[in-house]
């Protein structure tokens, strides 16, 4: 049993520009409905929160070591404010095949940048079945 770690850093202004230029097409292709609900304040969507979630998706891809659709990785927010990673579809398949479980996530943002760190337990399949 070991661990894998991934980290990513995203410029919030880049995300804000994508929202302004591509709108719902951008949002729906990258983020899940639950993520968008967590990032909405009234009628507007918070680019800083989106950027942190995109960083989490990229950090997770680094842990998986396989490129999967961004929307198959979901940042889930508890009522208390803590966040965790949820995997769907290809991301879930990739984690299962790669022996990865117990994903843990931390997000932060400051000075126009958002960052995420993802850690997962790694148990490679035994060749002899032991």
């Amino acid at each position, binding site marked *: 049993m070991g661990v894998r770690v991934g980290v*990513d850093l*995203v*410029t919030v202004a*880049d*995300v804000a520009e*994508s929202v302004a*230029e*591509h709108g719902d*097409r*951008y949002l729906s*292709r*990258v983020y899940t409905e639950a993520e968008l609900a967590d990032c909405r304040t009234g009628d507007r969507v918070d680019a800083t929160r989106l950027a942190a979630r*995109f960083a989490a998706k*990229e950090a997770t*891809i680094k842990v998986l070591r396989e*490129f*999967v*659709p*961004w*929307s*198959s990785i979901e940042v889930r927010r508890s009522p208390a404010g803590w966040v965790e990673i949820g995997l769907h*579809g*290809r991301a879930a398949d990739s984690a299962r095949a790669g022996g990865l479980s117990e994903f843990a996530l931390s997000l932060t943002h400051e000075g126009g940048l958002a960052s995420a760190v993802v850690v997962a337990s790694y148990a490679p399949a035994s060749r002899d079945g032991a």
Partner: protein
Amino acid sequence: MKDRIRAVLADQGRLPLPVESIDDADDLYAAGMTSHASINVMLGLENAFDVEFPDRMLNRSVFSSVDSIAAALNELCSESIA
């Protein structure tokens, strides 16, 4: 097709160097394109070529070079004709 792909990359790729200096097989991420910028490239390509990338193509590797983008677009265009 590749000229139109380059036009989208110039508009959406936020590359730190002129797109004319990038060869067809060059790694766009190594050239400075971020993963996030690749989403803008994808949406720009959809506008330019009137296609929609399916979920199976929504990943970093499809947008890693002019050649890989052209291959994906050729596949999508052939599917729409079939």
